[in-house]
């Protein structure tokens, strides 16, 4: 009784895969597995399996449509191979001309979580107003309530994760791994110790 069922099982999964394709092609942002499962009226496990099938079909080199895991969900995008063609037809208003100040501000907000303009200004050592307004305008950060002092706080948006191709904020490299700030400090401190008293 078990075997024939298994044999036909391939078919429903294929049907589910088609449903997921349909959902993903009309969605305007990455869809988490749970949302896909709910829309497809299926359980998450089977959705994961079907996504596995699709990820294989829609991959770089094989298809112009690529399925990627990004911003906490799944989304279609254009293959990198077609970037030139896309560049001729579409603008990239979100990330064009992001200044160093904008990048530092994004880094502060992405790493420290919701924070206000005064906090950003303190960390960067310069006023952050116009930079923050620019990032809000581009949709890379958004308001996230107010802090006690009354200042509006900001967080990064799913669009930020999407533009930077991040599965989630948790894949950002740990700050400690990035630089050698500690290293420089230690070097200087050890030098100071060597100094004759």
């Amino acid at each position, binding site marked *: 009784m078990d075997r024939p069922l298994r044999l036909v099982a391939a078919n429903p999964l294929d049907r589910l895969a088609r449903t997921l394709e349909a959902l993903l092609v009309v*969605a305007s942002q990455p869809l988490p597995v749970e949302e896909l499962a709910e829309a497809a009226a299926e359980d998450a496990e089977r959705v994961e399996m079907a996504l596995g099938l699709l990820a294989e079909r829609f991959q770089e080199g094989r298809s112009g449509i690529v399925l990627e895991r990004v911003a906490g969900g799944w989304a279609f995008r254009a293959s990198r191979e077609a970037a030139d063609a896309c560049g001729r037809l579409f603008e990239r208003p979100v990330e064009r001309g992001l200044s160093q100040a904008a990048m530092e501000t994004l880094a502060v907000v992405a790493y420290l979580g919701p924070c206000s303009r005064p906090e950003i200004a303190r960390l960067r050592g310069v006023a952050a107003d116009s930079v923050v307004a620019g990032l809000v305008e581009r949709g890379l950060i958004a308001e996230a309530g107010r802090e006690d002092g009354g200042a509006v706080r900001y967080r990064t948006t799913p669009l930020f994760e999407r533009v930077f191709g991040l599965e989630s904020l948790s894949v950002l490299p740990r700050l400690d791994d990035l630089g050698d700030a500690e290293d420089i400090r230690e070097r200087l*401190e050890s030098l100071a110790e060597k100094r004759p008293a």
Partner: protein
Amino acid sequence: MPVPVRELELDLEAFEGPFDLLLALVLRDELDLGEVDVAGIVLAFLERLAEREELDLDACGEFLVLVAALLELKARALLTGEDGDLEDLDPAQAAEELARRLADYRRIKEAAAWLVDRLDEESDRYFRLGPAPLAPRVERRLAAQDPAELATALRALSAEPPAVSLAHLELRFPPVEQFLGRFRSLLARRTRFDFDTEVDGLTRVEQAVAFLALLELRKAGEIELSQASPFAPIRVRRNAETQTERTTTWTARSA
């Protein structure tokens, strides 16, 4: 033989000794940064460079990083009003605090640099921003709301916020950006210029900062520098492959 930047001998009003020791003393708060003439350090370095037959660009790079660190420290040291009680800390704690702030800022810079690289790698990933062409329209429905929330929101908005010091907003880095912009626009018009002529008439500090800008441009590959002989004018030439649209400027990376 390279100029050993960290052993650069300084003879300033507030300090006499090698550059590295100065940084160490500053970190240990045994030297008041407010007293240190950073421009003097830059000038000492310039003189040291001038003694050499040719421009030692590696030394310039290292010097730039160290002096940038010092400027950051100095800038941050002026922030005492913001976090209040640095004066209440003992020297070791104060040094610790300054070092921590510098480290924080450096980490942010590193994180920003990582984001820049990432964006560069991901620039060939195109995706749709808006709704799909033939997608159904989304109807967002909202549950019933309590009008009291409106009153609460407006009341909160009209409450006096606790006093917050705005001291930190006063802080500005030295106008390296300003010279970067000035030199860039100069090079947009001319392929080369004479540094000494360009900074003639400026104060010593301005000249020092202008020189930092020059080093930064050189580091970014935008210009080439040459000097016929020690103390001869520094000639600046636009690099043939200069990218016209550089958005990342004045990034003090670690040596």
